């Protein structure tokens, strides 16, 4: 009865809200699966940028997308060999 009143007044949410939320999550996950090629070029670009500021161990570089229930994070593990002196980096 409460739901009926809510709907009569247009205040209660229909199942659309649920559908939108589920669709949002599904699409975040679907879209986050990077192709191997894309991941490789992302790695190369990361190396280029970070190398301006520090020496890194390129072979130990790891880049992954970390998916949890309601979010996706880009996680990069980059071993640093040496940090360049300030002022010297471009």
């Amino acid at each position, binding site marked *: *009865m409460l*739901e*009926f009143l809510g*709907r*009569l007044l*247009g205040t*209660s*949410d*229909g*199942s*659309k*809200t649920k*559908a*939108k939320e*589920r*669709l*949002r999550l*599904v*699409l975040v996950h*679907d*879209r986050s699966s990077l192709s191997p090629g894309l991941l490789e070029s992302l790695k190369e670009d990361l190396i280029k940028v970070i190398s301006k500021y520090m020496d890194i161990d390129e072979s130990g570089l790891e880049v992954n997308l970390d998916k949890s229930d309601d979010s996706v994070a880009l996680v990069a593990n980059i071993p640093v060999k040496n940090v360049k002196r300030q002022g010297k980096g471009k």
Partner: protein
Amino acid sequence: MGKVIVITSGKGGVGKTTTTANLGHGLAALGRKVCLVDADIGLRNLDVVLGLENRIVYHLLDVVEGNCTVSKALIRDKQHGENLVLLAAAQTREKDAVNPDQMRDLMKVLRKEYDYVLVDCPAGIEQGFRNAVAGADQAILVTTPEVSAVRDADRIVGLLEATELHDPQVIINRIRPDMVRRGDMLDISDVDDFLRIPILGIVPDDESIIVSTNRGEPVVNDQRSRSGQAYRNICRRLEGQEVPFMDLQGENFMQRLLRRIRVGAANR
């Protein structure tokens, strides 16, 4: 030189074939020469929706394999004659019997003769999909306001970006205004927010589609039907005309209130 448009969706059962048939009839009614190609090899249906199932002699694979000429395999429509023709799919073969290069060559031939070549794509993202999009200049996505259909459409948008087919447009099919109003169905702006591609048209859910499909006569020819009107609007948009979207919510406050009371009472 005509335009080759592939009609695709990812998910099955959202209305690709019905859309192809109706756009074909609608464009022919506007005076265009149209060729419809059923690329769903092994599961052909476009012939049935068009009511041409008894006329098929040759099919797409006969043409590709050189068993007959293109013109011999094209079936003329009952109503529009040589201005609307169908190239049927093979029913007893599999999707990998043809490859994208062969489809590209076929489209080159067809686009010389016709203003529009509409390709009805099979569901899925495998070989059949790759064949259907090969040689197309443009893609129309069909989706329904459901989580699964929009999700699959989004996947197709991504796959199309990887091919030479950019800028797909979407038709949102089977909208139920009463459910949208109640908040129980995704509306046009919701789907738009997710897909972010231009909307070519919106088609209301309509019983007359089922009736017309039973008869093998596309609903676009039915002047009284709402969905027929929606397809006629889409055809005019394809022709470059500016046509506003149908008002699916055309009710005043009292009608809406009465409907809510009825729906509310039914749900109790």
